[in-house]
């Protein structure tokens, strides 16, 4: 717990350092931009629309697979710790679990779920 407190302190200090640097920059060069200086860049023509739009990600199949496959991480960490202790049973059980999941990956690959362009 104490160790994690230090880690938290380091995290907050780094975040603060970044914020401070930006703030120093803003003091040296105050932010006072005109409308034309704020136009988003796309190479010389002002944009006609907001860039934020309903963004069609083509790899949504992969995203859904990640959602399912990522669960395996939860089991894998404790499994690795007791691997040696538990002996042969551990690789066998985990291999079974992984092979079940791999069927899903192979199926997605066969359905060309990772390709989009």
């Amino acid at each position, binding site marked *: 717990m104490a160790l994690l407190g230090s880690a938290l302190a380091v995290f907050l200090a780094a975040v603060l350092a970044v914020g401070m640097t930006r703030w120093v920059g803003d003091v040296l060069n105050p932010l006072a931009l005109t409308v034309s200086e704020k136009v988003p860049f796309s190479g*010389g023509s002002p944009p006609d629309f907001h860039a934020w739009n309903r963004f*069609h990600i083509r790899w949504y199949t992969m995203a859904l697979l990640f959602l399912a496959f990522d669960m395996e991480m939860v089991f894998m960490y404790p499994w690795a710790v007791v691997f040696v202790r538990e002996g042969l049973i551990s690789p066998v059980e985990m291999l079974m679990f992984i092979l079940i999941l791999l069927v899903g990956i192979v199926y997605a690959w066969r359905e060309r779920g990772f390709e989009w362009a």
Partner: protein
Amino acid sequence: MGVREALAGLARWSPVPVFPIVGGGARDLVRDLRLRPEVELVATPRHATLLLVAGRFPSGAIPGLAVVHDQIPVPRATVRWNGEVSDEISSARLVGGDEEDLIATLVALHREMMADPSRSGPPILPDVDAVEWRGVGPYGHGGKGMTGGTPYGRPLAERAGDRDGIELDQLPVTIGPWVGALPWGLELAVKLQGDLVQEVEVGPRLSTDPPTDVFSMATRKPMTVAVLELERARHHLRWLADALSIQGLSALGLRALRLGKILTPHHQREVRRLLAMVRRSGIFGLALNRAGGEVTGSQAKGLGPVARAGGVDDDARRDEPAYRELGFQTILHQKGDAAARWRQRMAEVTQSLDLSDRAGDRTAFGAGLVEGPRGRITANGPSPSVVVLDLLPQLLSGLEWGDAVSLVWSLDIDPTESVETHVDNRGAS
């Protein structure tokens, strides 16, 4: 203030970040600036301090100049190289002369900006919203309903059908003409659906007066093969420099550029070494493996390396006696895609060097038709870049943006090449 002076003193030694706007006749000069440690060409005006406007532009007006100028953060300044006084930016520093003069001006101006930001160039465009939105609508943000109106001055993208059978937003956006990702001067009006290019229109062309390089000279009088072929090799190395930087290999690109500058027929070994490094970079396996963009058959006619990469044996050099004496044989690749075009040009660099080495004082061409580095140059036909620009919409649609960029660069486009290469010539004859 002490801090500011101290920082300014250190910043003096920083490479000068320059955002280039490049018109006709200045591409090679600006590209060579990459070799100078004093200067750093950046891909977006947000990373720049100086705006460099170089070269000739059609009828004096430079599209997007004011927009890009205002996007450069303060302190900023503009340098106009070999231009007219009547250009849009009144505060621009005019320079002529050679590269050394330009570098000296850039460095001096950068130091001035760092030391005294109050001398920064003022914005050109007026400080008014493009669309009235403040105070409009129930929340004063300029919109009404969930998607209506022009919130904060711009509308939201509209819905459109998609090849996946889903109706989703399509974002129309004009990219270019001045962006590090595309050849200088190329403007693409694309409709993006996600990261996919659904539709492309090529923007106005920045054609200027006819080129004065050795290849266009060869349409009028015979030129020595040695000079032509060395220049062709140089051209391909310059192309390689640009194309490599866009694939994330700017250092290797610099190597190509540096080699191109000092190139002689005796540099075969260095060229081979460079090409081996390019091949080993995995560019064919990682970046161009499925980039697509096949240009083959009749549409490739007259497009030089692009045609030959697609298996079209189209090369004006075959019909020249001088080349026949040298045992010239066209190099062909079959697939005609982006990777094939890379391979084609890389093979032609060594071929040209070899030809240049053995050519002696043979001369070729001179009768109106020349095989230029981008393809066939004729007395009054369209230049190869113009032909390629017409192919772009069909080639780019359906590609992921990164692939689209790779494809554009594989075609070696110069948007400043004039529509009719030799208008003047025709008038004269």
